[in-house]
């Protein structure tokens, strides 16, 4: 192990980690909105939109992010749509994450029992109030563990961004291996960086899951 080398390149990893995190956050936020919209469309069974959302979900869930990115980055410019690598990364991640978020939110919405909705209607709440005060708050707490899992999944998926020439963690590691042949150090730092990014989320997800089980079953 060459510790002076590690010290020297740590700032590069830090920068790359921030880029990864930054892109992941934008992607997560956008896919959160997309997922929520799609979940509501599916939950309320809105006629035509339902089919479009269904097709989108199948397409997004059954293809790897890498191929989606390649298509955006190499095929779109040939059709006259030029996208920068950052735009590609964000669009790709949102396209992928949207369907995962949709599934989490929809199953959370469906987990709110019918009795709850009927009781709310009985005491004279309007449909809007039912959604706002009865369905959404309950669905929200149910969706937290799934949401955390999705966040973790999406941050992990950012590792393919290096394929569209973004200087993320993977890219820095690949670069350093190629330039200095310091494979062990580069890979070690890469692992540590992903641990720092993902371990807290993993712990929060575990905690949320336990809390939820406690809230639901009281044990």
């Amino acid at each position, binding site marked *: 192990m060459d510790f002076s080398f590690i010290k020297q390149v740590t700032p590069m990893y830090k920068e790359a980690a921030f880029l990864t995190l930054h892109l992941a956050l934008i992607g997560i936020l956008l896919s959160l909105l997309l997922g929520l919209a799609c979940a509501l469309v599916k939950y309320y069974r809105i006629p035509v939109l339902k089919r479009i959302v269904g097709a989108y979900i199948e397409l997004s869930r059954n293809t790897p992010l*890498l191929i989606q990115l*390649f298509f955006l980055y*190499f095929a779109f410019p040939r059709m006259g749509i030029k996208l920068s690598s950052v735009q590609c990364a964000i669009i790709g991640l949102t396209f992928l994450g949207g369907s995962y978020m949709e599934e989490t939110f929809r199953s959370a919405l469906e987990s709110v029992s019918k009795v709850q909705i009927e009781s709310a209607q009985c005491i004279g709440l309007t449909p809007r109030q039912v959604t706002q005060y009865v369905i959404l708050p309950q669905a929200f707490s149910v969706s937290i563990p799934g949401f955390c899992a999705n966040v*973790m999944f999406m941050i*992990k998926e950012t590792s393919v961004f290096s394929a569209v020439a973004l200087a993320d963690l993977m890219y820095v590691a*690949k670069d350093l291996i190629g330039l200095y042949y310091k494979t062990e150090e580069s*890979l070690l730092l890469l692992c540590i960086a*992903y641990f720092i990014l993902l371990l807290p989320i*993993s712990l929060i997800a575990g905690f949320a899951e336990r809390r939820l089980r406690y809230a639901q079953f009281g044990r």
Partner: protein
Amino acid sequence: MLSSDASVNMLDAIREAFGVLTMGTNTLRLLGGLWVTVWIALVSVAFSIVLGFLFGMLMTVKNRVVKTVCRIYLEFMRIMPQMVLLFLAYYGLTRMFSISLSGEAASILVFTLWGTAEMGDLVRGALESVPNHQYESGRAIGLTERQIFFYIIIPQTLRPLLPLSMNLITRMIKTTSLVVFVGVIEVVKIGQQIIEANRLTVPTASIAVYFVIFMMYFFVCWILSLAARAVERSQKR
């Protein structure tokens, strides 16, 4: 006026691009590449189902040390992106232990290790969901512990595991798209070769090639997830 011009150009580009697929054996080569990906996924899944069962049983052992070790292994496999694991196996192993694996071998190793962790967790869940009275009833009619395990517990875990492991196969196939980064000649690499070979004559080839690769992945995974859903539905009834 301008916009209609642009759309005509776009259509021309797309038409020209798809001509590449009919040239020579390009489509067949892409299908061959897809098979490499699917093959790696299938071999890894076969290994990880066997090892995952053992790992899942290990996780239900009530020994603290065993439990902690399993937990750490599972967390490590869950937290590391598969791409990092591939790099560790392909570049790391070679440098640190002088074990030089081919791209295919490294991929199968990584996907087996990862699949074992994921499958193990599914098996653990299935084993824990078998209610206690099943064990007790088995004992009451005089079966040995081994008989209880093989004739009562295992059959009950297989049912919920079937759709879950089918979903795992889909995830595995999607993830094997990464093996191009450790030098395996699979569908993406062959696609890149076709694009490069036609760089001068058909500069728009990338549209068709990536579209076809996208659709190939889609159909393989879609059929699997439809099958998984059908199995799940038939079990619920």
